[in-house]
């Protein structure tokens, strides 16, 4: 199609046909504000914050820039007095039914509504106060709460749940002024088949939904002299945490993160990358065992607790395909409270295991059955990257000025294979590095076929004369597509990696929120993944089977991957769940 000529604020430019007014303005360096709009996911033109004046030969009128297509010779005014007045009124009307507790709100400072109110000079937030809706807070789920008093009905959470994740346990109920976001028959979120992925939280522009905060409990444990408080950090956290302190997306925070955790008072600062390596040893062994001994194939990874819960609710018949390996978070806790506790002579009951995760489903996972290797829960608290950011801020630690420090030995040792777990395809790549070595004795590193942010990737590797067909999916809609293909017998994969969140853990539901105005134009998944792949490249050891701490763990304690003892400590079981 031909290009179009448009005039934005008097400036002429050429845009491809099909460009929206919002996109054209972006090309011209003007960001039109949005609240409901999510590119390709929620293009509903509902919130009216993006209204912009356009003239197509019949005089200027206001249109929703996010969904209105450019036409040839269109004149666009993005900040005329009429536009500003319309946006301001919309904000005032949103505020009339908004619980304006900004002082205590978890999103204060990075709330998209708050920023717009400041930008548009809202001087009287109560201008249109009248009848207000009053909602009870839903805290029935393990990982999050919903406070509809702060909801602005943008429906981003609804769209991401239904479209990106293919779940749809939340939606708009009732109509008009009574409209609210909730679940069917007003079930609490905890009663539904919500998988706890937290993608809804990651896209919420305001403080209506948030993770359950356990920072106070963690600080109390640190202050308790009886307790040894250990912390582990997931790979993706280091690719996101720096954003909490004003750094650009894609900043590596690893060294400063370790330093900050030490200054927060954790007794030992360990790394989930260690147990990612351990996961590979167990998972690669399990995979080869299934291949060689006629086990259930394809085998599907089990690192992502959102994916696991999804499988249990929506594909319980596929449970035998799931690797029985605990996730790296749980393997870490299990190792810390057995091997490490014995080694150090600490009663596991006095160990408080804290994990920092890019994930909200990890909060659900720590409460799962069959996750207590030492008779006490493997992990006591799972905090999100955002919660850690808040802890650091509250402690007055100047994060950006911190020195780069290292993790503690021995459970802080890891390889490049462990750190790439945080990006989609990373677990597959790490597993293949070790599987290839086990079968052929060859060392492989980079496997570009399984990298990248595409939702579904396929590859075939010839390993020791055997073709291994693999598939990598991220985002649960994509997972559904792959599973349906497997069920219909149209795919003969042997090994599938599934991550609940699109792009993998770097884009997890517990990562720092990025304003949608940025997300619509920047691929945060790719930017954060680069941090992990660069780290991998920079490491002296890049295959899990070379991790000296993992080797020592097997030599001193677990004997060998897949041993009886390894199964007792590092493997788990799954349950069937219903759909609600």
């Amino acid at each position: 199609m031909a290009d179009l000529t448009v005039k934005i604020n008097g400036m002429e430019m050429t845009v491809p046909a099909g460009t929206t007014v919002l996109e054209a303005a972006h090309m011209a360096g003007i960001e039109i504000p949005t609240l409901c709009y999510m590119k390709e996911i929620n293009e509903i033109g509902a919130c009216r914050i993006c209204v912009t004046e356009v003239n197509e030969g019949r005089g200027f009128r206001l249109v929703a820039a996010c969904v209105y297509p450019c036409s040839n010779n269109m004149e666009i005014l993005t900040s005329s007095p009429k536009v500003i007045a319309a946006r301001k009124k919309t904000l005032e009307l949103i505020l009339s039914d908004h619980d304006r507790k900004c002082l205590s709100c978890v999103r204060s400072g990075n709330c998209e509504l708050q920023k717009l109110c400041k930008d548009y000079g809202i001087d009287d937030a109560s201008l249109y106060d009248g009848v207000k809706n009053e909602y009870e807070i839903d805290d029935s789920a393990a990982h999050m709460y919903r406070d509809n008093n702060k909801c602005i009905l943008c429906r981003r959470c609804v769209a991401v749940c239904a479209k990106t994740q293919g779940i749809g346990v939340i939606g708009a109920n009732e109509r008009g002024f009574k409209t609210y976001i909730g679940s069917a028959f007003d079930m609490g979120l905890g009663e539904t088949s919500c998988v706890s992925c937290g993608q809804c939280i990651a896209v919420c522009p305001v403080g209506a939904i948030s993770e359950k905060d356990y920072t106070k409990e963690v600080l109390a444990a640190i202050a308790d002299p009886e307790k040894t408080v250990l912390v582990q950090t997931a790979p993706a956290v280091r690719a996101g945490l720096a954003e909490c302190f004003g750094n650009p997306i894609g900043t590596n925070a690893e060294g400063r993160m370790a330093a900050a955790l030490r200054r927060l008072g954790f007794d030992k600062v360990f790394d989930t990358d260690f147990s990612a390596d351990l996961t590979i040893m167990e998972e690669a062994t399990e995979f080869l065992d299934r291949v060689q001994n006629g086990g259930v194939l394809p085998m599907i990874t089990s690192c992502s607790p959102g994916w696991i819960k999804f499988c249990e609710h929506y594909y319980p018949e596929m449970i035998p395909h799931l690797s029985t390996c605990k996730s790296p978070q749980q393997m870490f806790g299990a190792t810390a409270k057995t091997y490490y506790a014995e080694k150090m002579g600490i009663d596991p009951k006095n160990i408080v295991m804290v994990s920092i995760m890019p994930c909200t489903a990890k909060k659900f996972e720590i409460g799962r059955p069959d996750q207590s290797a030492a008779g006490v829960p493997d992990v006591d608290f799972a905090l999100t990257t955002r919660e850690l950011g808040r802890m650091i801020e509250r402690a007055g630690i100047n994060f950006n000025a911190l020195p780069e420090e290292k993790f503690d030995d021995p459970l802080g040792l890891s390889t490049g294979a462990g750190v790439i777990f945080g990006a989609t395809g990373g677990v597959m790549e790490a597993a293949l590095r070790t599987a290839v070595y086990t079968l052929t004795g060859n060392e492989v590193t980079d496997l570009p076929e399984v990298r990248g942010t595409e939702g579904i990737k396929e590859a075939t590797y010839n390993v020791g004369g055997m073709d291994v067909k693999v598939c990598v999916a991220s985002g649960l809609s994509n997972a559904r597509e792959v599973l349906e293909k497997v069920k219909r017998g149209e795919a003969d994969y042997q090994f599938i990696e599934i991550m609940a969140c699109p792009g993998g853990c770097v884009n997890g539901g517990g990562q720092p929120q990025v304003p949608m105005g940025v997300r619509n134009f920047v691929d945060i998944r790719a930017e954060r993944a680069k941090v992990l792949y660069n780290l991998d490249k920079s490491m002296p050891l890049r295959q899990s089977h070379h991790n000296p701490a993992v080797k020592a763990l097997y030599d001193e304690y677990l004997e060998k991957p897949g041993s009886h003892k390894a199964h007792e400590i590092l493997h788990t079981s799954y349950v069937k769940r219903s759909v609600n």
Partner: protein
Amino acid sequence: MNSAKSTVPFKGTPEQEAELLRVIEEKKSDKGALMPILQKAQEIYGYLPIEVQKIISDNTGIPLEKIYGVVTFYAQFSLYPKGEYTISVCLGTACYVKGSGDIYDKLQEKLGIGGGECTPDGKFSLDACRCIGACGLAPVMTVNEDVYGRLTVDDIDTILAKYA
């Protein structure tokens, strides 16, 4: 948020379910199938409780919440059955200025249900209606075919007692 779970026990029959499944099978591949399926389902059962919405969800793959969202959006759909006695209170202009709002409130209080709902024993359901053409008798309510006019809140006990 009110709990929208009906307290009236579900009394769906296998015949009703078979008919609903037939309707779903016939329509489910159509674009926008949910509305006609819901309309038929309400024809079959008289209302759309969770049991019925679940059958629709399980057999169409449409998430239960999406169905519930549509049902609660449109006034034509009801989550509650009609009672043995259907009480309608006119909230039209004439009745309203004569105090039918108080009567409606009092009935909700006496029956322990909100508008559009049904008592757990299945006896009474309560609705608001617009003008029934008896403005001269305002405020007016009907119980099935019986019309009661020139009401005061004190009349309600006596009227309900007739149907108890």
